[in-house]
Structures are given as structure tokens and as C-alpha cells.
């Protein structure tokens, strides 16, 4: 393959996450076509591109919320979920899928906090019931994470009592409580009022600075430019171009990338002016 950048040095064995010719379709509609992409431990990779490009679907395939139709997903050097071995299709048992999911954190556009649990309850739920941590330990971890995202005083509140930005920070803390090896962000700031985007991006920047491995679907070009080790531009279910942010943002080699960036950076400029 001809892609430049750090991404091409990746291999299924060395990468934390490696997608090998992944494809996904709903009936006749093909949403992902032959996607190959690797993420090394500690890397931040941003997926950008127009809506309908398949960015979110790709992210959801990584923790098996969507099932792929072709190719192989490798996690920690091993094929996972559904893969071919000796010419036969292997389907991982639910237990293995659950164990892999437990080590991959996901943050959703719509937060998806559990409305019947308090903020603290949301964060300790999976550590207690999935990882079987002692209650006190889970609680201490949760409070430390809440301090990290700046919401110590909201521990006993219910999600509906929080702003969108606060809810999303709780959602990030909830994912981090599982000590994930990889964090997936699915347009984590897209549902937020503009004035609340910053507080969530700050948490994400801090996380990246600490060395968390992150795969981020985002429309925040500033974040992608500043934080990521690699930027992947997708359109129509395919990777059009990938490279270091400096390359992608200053000298994109592909016409479609140029067009997309022109449009989005132009509208961002307008938003900034307004």
C-alpha cells in the first residue's frame, strides 16, 4: 500500500489495534470498503470526513457494536470477534467479546449515561459488576476520576440534573473507570452547545497528553490538528488519505481532502467570527 506516515509502519502484530481490509455492508449498501488502519499504543488517531463517510460505523466495528462482513480486526496482536483461521470462520464466544469490550472505552455522541443511577453509580457500575472490583475501591477510583474531569461535587447527582458537557465528562470518567487500553470517541462534542464543547475537549486533550491510546471521530479540526499523531480522511466508506496532521492540514495530496478541509475550515472560521 502507498499510504505515507507513521500509520503504514503498523502491522497486525505490533499494533494495539489493527484493521486489515475491513468491510461492512447493510444488504446491498456498502458502508465500509477495505479499510486498513493501525494504531500503536499511545497514539491518537482522528477520523475526519463528511457525514455518511462511515467514520462512526468504523468506530463501532472496533468494539463489535457492529459486525464486520469482511477483513479482520486485530486487537493486541490477535484477531478478534470474527476471523478466518485455517480457512474456517471463527466467531468469538460472547465472553471473549465482552472481555475485549471491557478493555476498550467508548464515548458516545449522545452520552448514554444510565438515567436511573447517580453520577457515581454510573461510574462504579461496570467496575463492580464486570471487573468485580471491591465496592470501596471502585468508589475511590470513581471519585478520583470525577476530580480529574472536574465534577467532584456532582457525584450524587442524577444525569438529568447535569448539563450536556458535564454529562459527557461523566461518560468519559465512566469509560476510564474500566482502565481501558483504547478509548473510542464517537463525535463526543457534536451534541453539545458550542459553549460546552471546550470543557469536553480539554478532558480529551489531557487524556491524550497522558498517553492514552485514542481513536477519535470528530468534526473539531483544531483538536485533530493539535492532538493527533495521525489524521485519517474518510469518504464513501473508504480511507481517502491518511497522514500526520501537518501533512493533511497543510498539504493534503488528495483533491477530496482539500475540498472537505476548505469547506469545513471556512465554516469554522465563520463560526469563530460569529
Amino acid at each position, binding site marked *: 500500500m502507498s499510504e505515507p506516515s507513521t500509520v503504514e509502519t503498523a502491522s497486525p502484530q505490533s499494533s494495539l489495534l489493527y484493521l486489515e481490509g475491513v468491510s461492512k455492508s447493510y444488504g446491498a449498501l456498502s458502508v465500509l470498503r477495505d479499510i486498513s488502519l493501525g494504531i500503536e499504543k499511545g497514539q491518537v488517531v482522528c477520523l475526519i470526513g463528511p457525514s455518511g463517510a462511515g467514520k462512526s460505523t468504523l468506530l463501532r466495528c472496533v468494539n463489535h*457494536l457492529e459486525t464486520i462482513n469482511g477483513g479482520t480486526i486485530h486487537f493486541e496482536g490477535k484477531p478478534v470477534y470474527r476471523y478466518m483461521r485455517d480457512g474456517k470462520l471463527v466467531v468469538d464466544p*460472547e465472553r471473549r467479546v465482552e*472481555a475485549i469490550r471491557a478493555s476498550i472505552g467508548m464515548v*458516545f455522541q449522545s452520552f*448514554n449515561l444510565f438515567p*436511573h443511577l447517580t453520577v457515581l453509580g454510573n461510574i462504579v457500575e461496570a467496575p463492580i459488576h*464486570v471487573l468485580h472490583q471491591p465496592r470501596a475501591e471502585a468508589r475511590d477510583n470513581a471519585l478520583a476520576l470525577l476530580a480529574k474531569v472536574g465534577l467532584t461535587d456532582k457525584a450524587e447527582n442524577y444525569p438529568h*440534573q447535569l448539563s450536556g458537557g458535564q454529562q459527557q465528562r461523566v461518560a468519559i470518567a465512566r469509560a476510564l473507570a474500566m482502565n481501558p487500553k483504547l478509548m473510542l470517541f464517537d463525535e463526543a462534542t457534536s451534541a453539545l452547545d458550542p459553549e460546552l464543547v471546550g470543557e469536553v475537549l480539554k478532558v480529551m486533550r489531557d487524556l491524550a497528553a497522558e498517553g492514552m491510546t485514542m481513536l477519535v471521530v470528530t468534526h473539531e479540526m483544531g483538536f485533530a490538528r493539535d492532538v493527533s499523531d495521525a489524521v485519517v480522511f474518510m469518504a464513501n466508506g473508504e480511507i481517502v488519505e491518511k497522514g500526520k496532521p501537518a501533512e493533511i492540514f497543510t498539504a493534503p495530496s488528495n483533491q477530496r481532502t482539500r475540498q472537505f478541509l476548505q469547506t469545513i475550515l471556512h465554516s469554522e472560521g465563520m463560526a469563530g467570527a460569529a
Partner: protein
Amino acid sequence: MTVVHEMLSFLPDLLQGALTTITVSLLAYVLALIGGLAFGLARLSPFLAVRSVATVYVQFIRGTPLLLQLFSIYYVLPYAGIVLSPFASGVLGLAINYSAYMAEVFRSGIQAVAAGQREAGQSLGMSRRLLMRRIILPQAFRIVIPPIGNFFVAIFKDSALVSVITMRDLMFTGELLASATFKHFEIFGMVAIIYFCISYPVAKFVEYVEARFDVQKRGQAIGVQQQQGPPAVVGTG
């Protein structure tokens, strides 16, 4: 005064019947809750066989009259060597009938929980069972409280049907007294009052439970209470 007097003279017998009505209804309701949840979950089972059995049960029970189901249990089962007392038949009949309706309520309640909740749980590594128990069902219960509460009010009244299989509930006792004394107005008047005296507090209780488990509403209720001062100047003139 004599009418009231006569009405009161029937009270001990009628209250005895009312006690049976309450017992039958409560037992049947608890069984129907358990059965309804089980069949509701079965309707959503990943296994086709389980799903099919539950679907047939729900559709068949909902498609036949409660009266016929009571007759079937009391008069037809004995042909198969199963003889149940009027009490057992009444409880079982009501429970089976209500469980089918409750199954549909539980199923739709579970399906009404936002898809994002399931995905959030899955992404945290939760198993199917854990997800259902800790995330989906607690939310589904809140959704189904109003319809399930309505069933609780309704079952006390529907339980009057068990009188047809000679169970001495409130209705049956009323019929017996009426046919012996021909005091239809007094007796059925009393019966109506007693049914209402059972149903009304039950309805109020259901309202309370609804408010108690609605987190949003509870927040509002607390807000209202805080605003309420003493009823200041009303009626001091």
C-alpha cells in the same frame, strides 16, 4: 333509616366475601407479575423456540375470554384428572389471563428503553444478563409502572368473574344474599360501595408509586413542596 340498617345487616357476610376478593386478587396479581415478566422476557429471547412458545401463549390467552379460561380450568381440567378448588381455579385463571397482558407490557417496556443504553452497557463489557438486570429492567420497570398499576386496580374488579365458578368472593356473596332476600338495591348497593372502597385506595397507591419512581417527577414534587408556605390568608374572613 331502615334501608341503611338493612344494608349494614349484610355487611359481615359481604366483608367476608370482600376478604376473599382481596386475597384472590393479590395472589393472582403477584403470580401474573412473575408470569408476565417471564413471558415478556421470553418474547424477546434470542432463541426462536422460546420466543415462539411465549408468542403463542400470549396471543392465545389474549384472544379468548377470561370467563372461558375460568370455565376451562374449573370444569374442563378435571377431565384430564386435574381437579382444582374454586379458589385455586380462580387465582390461576386470573393470573394466567393477566400474565398474558402483562407480558406484552413488559416486552414493550423493555423495548422502549433507548438503544443507546444497551450499547453503553455493551461497550463496558456487560454480559447480556447483567445488562438486562442492571440497566434495561430498572428503566423498563419505571416505564411500565403506569400500565402495570392499572392492572392492579382492574384485577380487583375482574376478580368478580370468579363468582361464576362458585367462589365465595364479594360478588358471589352478594348474589347469594340477593337471591335469598330479594333486597337487590340494598345488597348490590353495598357491594358496589365495598368494591369502590377497595379500588379507590388501590388507585391512590398506584399514583403514589408512579410518582415515587419517576425521578424527574420526584424532583419537581420536591420543588413544589419547598415553595409551599403556610396557606396564608385563605379563609381568615
